[in-house]
């Protein structure tokens, strides 16, 4: 989702830097609130929203080597 931003020597804009963290943050926030507002599928939304940061941590910690 983020490897398309050009060569590693190019300066990135604020949006390029924070695009992924921003959406992860939005999904985390949705996850934090969802299970408070309802049960059933709203619990599942919470699990997905808050699992995303965990999955990203695992993927980039173990999943890739130096670029």
């Amino acid at each position, binding site marked *: 989702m983020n490897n398309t931003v050009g060569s590693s020597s190019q300066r990135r804009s604020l949006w390029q830097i924070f695009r992924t963290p921003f959406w992860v943050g939005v999904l985390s926030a949705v996850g934090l609130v969802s299970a408070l507002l309802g049960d059933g599928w709203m619990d599942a939304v919470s699990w997905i929203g808050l699992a995303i*940061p965990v999955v*990203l941590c695992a993927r980039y910690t173990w999943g890739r080597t130096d670029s």
Partner: protein
Amino acid sequence: MNVKLWFLVHKWTSIICTAFLLLLCITGLPLIFSEEIEHELGDQVTAPPMPEDTPHTSLDRVAEAARAQRPGEHIRFMFWDNDHHPNQVLVLMAESMDAPPDANSGVVVDSRTALVLDEPKLDEGLMYILFKLHVDLFAGLPGMLFLGFMGLLFAVAVISGVVLYTPFMRKLDFGTVRKHRSTRLKWLDLHNLLGVVTLVWALVVGVTGTINTLSQIVVAIWQQDQMAEMTAAYQDLPPPQQIGSVQRAREAALAAVPDMNLSLIAWPGSQFSSPHHYTVFLHGNTPVTSRLLQPALVDAVTGELTDTREMPWYVKTLFLSQPLHFGDYGGMPLKIIWALLDIITIIVLGSGLYLWLGRGSTVSRPVDEIESGGLAEGNIT
């Protein structure tokens, strides 16, 4: 502010709070599962099976049973928890009504038969030690407020960390982890990555934790504010010599707020009540309203309802901060995710500590490191 100043903010807030945050994260990990752990350890009784529609007995009998179990002690609270402990009432008693808030003994009574089921030890065991370390370092209100302040420093450290993420990532793709250049560079990359993706969760858990440390203050303000307003007519009366039936108080409260369930009853003269009232706290049925307790004050002598109001905003904020800190509102999957995020936060704290310990003695090196995305001289070994 420039990078150097933000770096100093990040460094100093982190240095002060990291040791305590590590303690909070480590003790908090088992506390996420305290319900399950206590269940496994067999520390919790269950009421014996009886037909589903067995009626609940009068609370006056429950109160009598508790007093007979611990003669000479005074009842301060009765608690219900239908989800986890159906058909049970936890009665909290103390040597006197104005004993310290945590100087309680507990008696668990079957709410159908008024038989005593258990006298749980409230202040021993590993979970109790972890709980106290997490909440107040065994230092009461000052310890609690101190940890609250550490939570605030943590929030500042997180925000300044995000600011420093910007120059660091100028020339790097999201998710860059350079594993083979040097150990320091690998941990610097991981510190940035893990920190930025868990940012919102860490901020919310940190800030709600700080709000929870203010609970005693919030209750005291509520006493002075809404509770004082509701009991204004009683202000100049001496405390009653004899108090009446708690069962009548329960009935009066449930009649006044029909769609809610019992959460706890605070006895006249206890921390959450007035000398003249049973305060019956009720909760709703949705995940949110089950956290937002509503007090109904019942005259302890006449058994008539005095007043019932929604809690003011600052108490509601406290109530909603509790689930957002504990992670106990979305079933076991949410608890597991909470634990994983907690572990990631421990890694962020630990790697921050490692980066600081291995920093060298100047400020310029880490700042160069941040501004160059970790490629400053000395990193490539």
